[in-house]
């Protein structure tokens, strides 16, 4: 599904240039669950942003579902993101002025899904995330765990092929964290490809494969046999 080769990304400030990704090459198969780990500043989030087409690399190739996307314009990337990619963030990134229902509805709105169908899909996914009763509440009225479930609902409501999660349990306690990881596992088992950035060994153990980054380079790649054996 994803094939990146020799990806480079650097950031320039007025005085310094920082190399965030240095010749990264990675393949992710469809329905795979990959965890990316590494110390702060190693380039995990940069890699995730590029994989999520939120940013472009400086050089290298990125093939997504058979299409080269490394040098696409912002609007072309938006078109591909729409409906194909779902995002889950550490700080949930829910829009405060929208209700739970409206937050989850957003991707369908941009896909121009008819109103009735939208309603049906949103309610279905909210029920599945066990927050259907909170549909009319605003994010501030929910606990952290509930907010992250809303964010997951938003990521999957449009049947995204790829879910990108950036430290999804970073702001949650262990109980809520476990629930989120269970949900991600379920989604993966139902066919979604998941790439997750995490600091947590516990969370990483849910993945099929663990990639370790250091100074913008992949230093190790470990297959999680215990998980694969269960499949």
């Amino acid at each position, binding site marked *: 599904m994803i094939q990146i080769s020799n990806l480079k990304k650097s950031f320039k400030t007025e005085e310094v240039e920082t190399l965030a990704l240095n010749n990264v090459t990675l393949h992710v198969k469809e329905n795979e669950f990959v965890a990316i780990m590494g110390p702060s500043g190693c380039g995990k989030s940069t890699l995730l942003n590029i994989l999520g087409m939120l940013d472009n690399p400086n050089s290298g190739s990125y093939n997504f579902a058979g299409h080269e996307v490394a040098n696409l314009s912002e609007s072309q990337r*938006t078109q591909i993101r729409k409906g194909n990619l779902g995002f889950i963030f550490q700080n949930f990134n829910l829009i405060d002025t929208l209700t739970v229902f409206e937050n989850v509805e957003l*991707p369908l709105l*941009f896909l121009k899904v008819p109103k009735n169908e939208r309603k049906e899909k949103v309610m279905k996914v909210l029920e599945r995330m066990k927050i259907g009763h909170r549909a009319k509440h605003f994010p501030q009225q929910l606990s952290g765990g509930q907010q992250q479930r809303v964010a997951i609902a938003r990521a999957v409501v449009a049947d995204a092929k790829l879910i990108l999660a950036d430290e999804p349990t970073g702001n949650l306690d262990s109980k809520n964290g476990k629930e989120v990881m269970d949900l991600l596992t379920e989604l993966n088992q139902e066919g979604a490809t998941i790439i997750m950035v995490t600091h947590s060994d516990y969370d990483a153990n849910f993945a099929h494969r663990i990639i370790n980054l250091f100074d913008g380079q992949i230093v190790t790649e470990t297959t999680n046999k215990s998980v694969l054996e269960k499949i």
Partner: protein
Amino acid sequence: MLKHNLLLFFRNIKKYKTTFLINIIGLSSGLACVLLIYLWVHDELNMDAFNEKDSERHVQVIHTYPTSGTFHTNTNGSTPNPLAEALGKEMPEVEYSFPVKADHSYKGILSAGDNNLRAKYQFIGKGYFNVFPGDFIHGNKHEILSDKNEIAISKKLAMTLFQSTEKAMGEIVEFKDEGYGGSYTVTGVFNPTSNTSAQFDILFSYELFVGSGFMQWYNGGTQAHLVLKEGVNLDQFNVKLKNFLKTKHKNWNDILYAQPYSEKYLYGKYENGLPVAGKIIYVNLFSLIALFILAIACINYMNFSTAKASRRIKEIGVKKAVGAGRKTLIFQYFGESMFMAFLSLIIALVLVVILLPQFNQITGKELTLNLARNVIVSILAITTFTGLISGIYPALYLSGFKPVIALKGRLRTNINELWLRKGLVVFQFAISVILIVSMVVIYKQVEFIQTTNLGYNKDHIISFSKEGQLEKDFTPFLSEIKSIPGVLNASQMTGDLPGRVGSTHGYKWEGMSKEDRKLKFYQIRGGYDLIELLGITLKDGRNFSRDFSTDKDAIIMNETAVEMIKLDNPVGRKFGNLNPNVNTKEVIGVIENFHFQSLQEKVRPFFFSLSDRGNNLVVKIQAGTEKQTIDQIEELYTRFNPGYPFEYKFLDDNYQTLYASEERITVLSKYFGGIAILISCLGLLGLAIFTASQRRKEIGIRKTLGQKRSRITVLLSSEFAKLVGISILIGLPIAFLLMEDWLSAFAYRIELRMEYFFLTAILTMVVALTTVAAQAIRAANRNPIEALREEE
């Protein structure tokens, strides 16, 4: 999607009430100002523009003659009386022509039974209603006045005299006026037309005027209207027309110019016989002020929307991540500014309805918020323009964030954006500074006009027409009027003060040069006590006196006349006339200069002479007794002049009328200047609140490290003080240049004093700093822990 956007818009309003209030107050008050100005400008631009189809073909001839080394144009449209007919016959480019004799400052008396009414009248030639609008309730406008004994009257006159427009038709009415008195049959009743500068209540046939015998080329006062043939090039026609009068008299150097009638109202000033900007200057000026006020209000919106981008950055990031394109976001933010503009329009319309009566009082108009199609279209266009201008920058700015940066939620404002935002604040305050200086200077100039020593005392003097019996013999009336206790003095005079003073040339005196023959002298002919009544100071010689029978050929000159004729000892000198039929005068006295014209004019050569033929009676009344004295004068007047309504004017009111437009500008600039600074301050307040909240962490750290509250207050305020300071530095020189230009139109004017500029600078700074300091103090007083905890 629209529903979603509206939902977000309303929820953001609910969440950020202060921002919303600042925006809505700014935009709606700005729009209300703009709408009021629009109604006024629309009315001015449509004045006399009733003939859209033929606006270039219907022209009025403007007559200019050389005098005192320069040119004088008859701005009232007066031309030689036979001109209209002659041009119609002799110029092949003219399809037809017609004369109009109108002097709207004179009124005749129309009587039916015991009802007597004073009304404005004019004489019109055939063809008048081919181009002028005429809303006739009774009578056919193309057929009326075929006989010179016919008259058409306004609905108002018909209702007052006959209580019905229908009954008025065919009735005989009496008209009392010099030259045209007699009985006339009413053959038409009309509704007055609103968008014409020509206002009258009575129409006569021009044939009636022809019958009065003033139809020589040297007789003037008639307007010459022409309708040119289709395809005639006006410029080429004007080349031909310019020296037309030479064909009547080879030494006649006067020049003619055909001006489209619809342009005359706005371009009614002339230089060397050619039209220059007249009222259009005020139309442009106020349009510019409207634009400025709207710009200030739009800038507030722009500044808030961009400064508070951090509040919405997450929303932008999420939307982009889940598939919203830039166009979708541009549409959303444009939609918000548009919605805001239309919401403001509703409030603005309410404000306009509330303020319109007051505005009409100031402008002297009868404007209404009539929702005609073109007005609605214009209002919608103004509102859409407001929405677009307010929204364009925020929409492009907010939709332009990269999703990665937006999702991080930490907005780093780049230096260019910061400069732009600061630049907009500077622009707002510079405009406010210009408006405030203008307000102060205009106020001071008008005050100067009001309080300047005019050289005569205009207070407590009334004037009224010398007509009817009084015209034949006014002496017994004057004797009796002087015995009324509150009357201090009474006399009679030609013309009116200030402004309506006649002038002639063709005088001769000892030692005059050839050039001096063109020198024009203004003149008031009046009674014995006139100079004393007006409180004019005699500088040399003596006043007119009944003891000298020769005084009927005596004149009393002003200082300017003495200067112009270059006589060292003018008293006793002869002042002859090139016309051998006119008696030579003797100068018996010299008076100090007095302003018999507007202060926009220099005092010109002038003299008083004695005459019984003045058309106005003037009475000086003791201060404080006006009411009972005027009642007694009226009683006396009605006794002497039965059938003539007593209508009087205070000389002081005449004077005020002369400066009506300056008065209007003073009041309007006061209001608009006030609103501009209010909206600017609202903008500043919003930014101050925002900056204080942005710098919460910095303030917290500074306080933790022991910085004093006062120092923090100064720190926060100084940034804005710098911006306002720059605005002052930019605004003051511009205001200086603009005001110098405006004052240059006045021959007698104030000088621009430093204090006006200092005052404005201090006022602007104080208002701005008061706005900002309150926020700064609040921020400085906060517990530092709160700020630091929030930032964790």
